[in-house]
């Protein structure tokens, strides 16, 4: 529990801040889209570490199971929304005629906007988990 509160939680907040800034920068200058993809990869890694740490805490016991599992699932469920713009790529594998079709610059901007939204949501999830763990520790 201490490992989460002292190391993982600040790490997730920092990663969320970097993701938010990278998303904002990409929206302002689409040539930074490649850098955003690197940041997203790093954010995946941070979220995996967060989830593993929380699973270890759950196994050790002493925390409310239902809500903690719910927040772990939420943290992981946010990840597929990063890079959602790939579904709007002209060559995406889809037979839906009404799906949004994006140009290259629009793909970068959508990924930037999604990164900003997910960064806020992920930070809130981590904060809620930290509040729960802080209350029981």
């Amino acid at each position, binding site marked *: 529990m201490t490992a989460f509160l002292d190391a993982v939680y600040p790490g997730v907040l920092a990663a969320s801040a970097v993701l938010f800034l990278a998303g904002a920068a990409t929206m302002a200058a689409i040539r930074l889209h490649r850098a955003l993809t690197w940041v997203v990869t790093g954010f995946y890694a941070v979220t995996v570490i967060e989830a593993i740490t929380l699973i270890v805490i759950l196994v050790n016991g002493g925390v409310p199971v*239902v*809500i903690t599992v*719910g*927040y772990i*699932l*939420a943290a992981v*469920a*946010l990840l597929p*929304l990063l890079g*959602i*713009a790939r579904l*709007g790529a002209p060559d995406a594998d889809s037979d*839906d005629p*009404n*799906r*949004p*079709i*994006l140009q290259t610059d*629009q793909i970068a*901007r*959508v990924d930037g*906007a*999604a990164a900003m*939204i*997910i960064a806020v*949501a992920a930070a809130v999830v981590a904060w809620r988990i930290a509040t729960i763990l802080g209350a029981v520790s």
Partner: protein
Amino acid sequence: MNSGRMNNAYMNPVARIALIVAYAVLALAALGRSSYQISTKFADAPLAYSISAVSALLYAVIAFALWKGIRRLALAGSSIELAGVLIVGTLGYVESSWWPDETVWTGYGSAYGWVPLALPILALWALYRSKGSRTL
């Protein structure tokens, strides 16, 4: 159908997917909140927890409608959402005894940074700009 005219009627795809992401995140948040509340303490505030569940369903339906380009469904869902936020938010102040616990829409969505209030306004504005088209 004339593709140029259709393009003018379409919603900006960047705004459209950004709205889909925002609604998906809200659906996730509301689903988690309502699932926990209903499974652990539904009897404490059945109205509030039911409204949270309805809001989760509504957010998911709007995200789906935006993705599939079903304009009317997105319009109806966003309108219901805005009405719900305004009604529940106002009733929270006028008849506070009705609400032993908070919903997603309590305080006009203040617990979620007022996103539940701002999002349907943005969605309705974007959908209004795409009027004249049955799809997005």
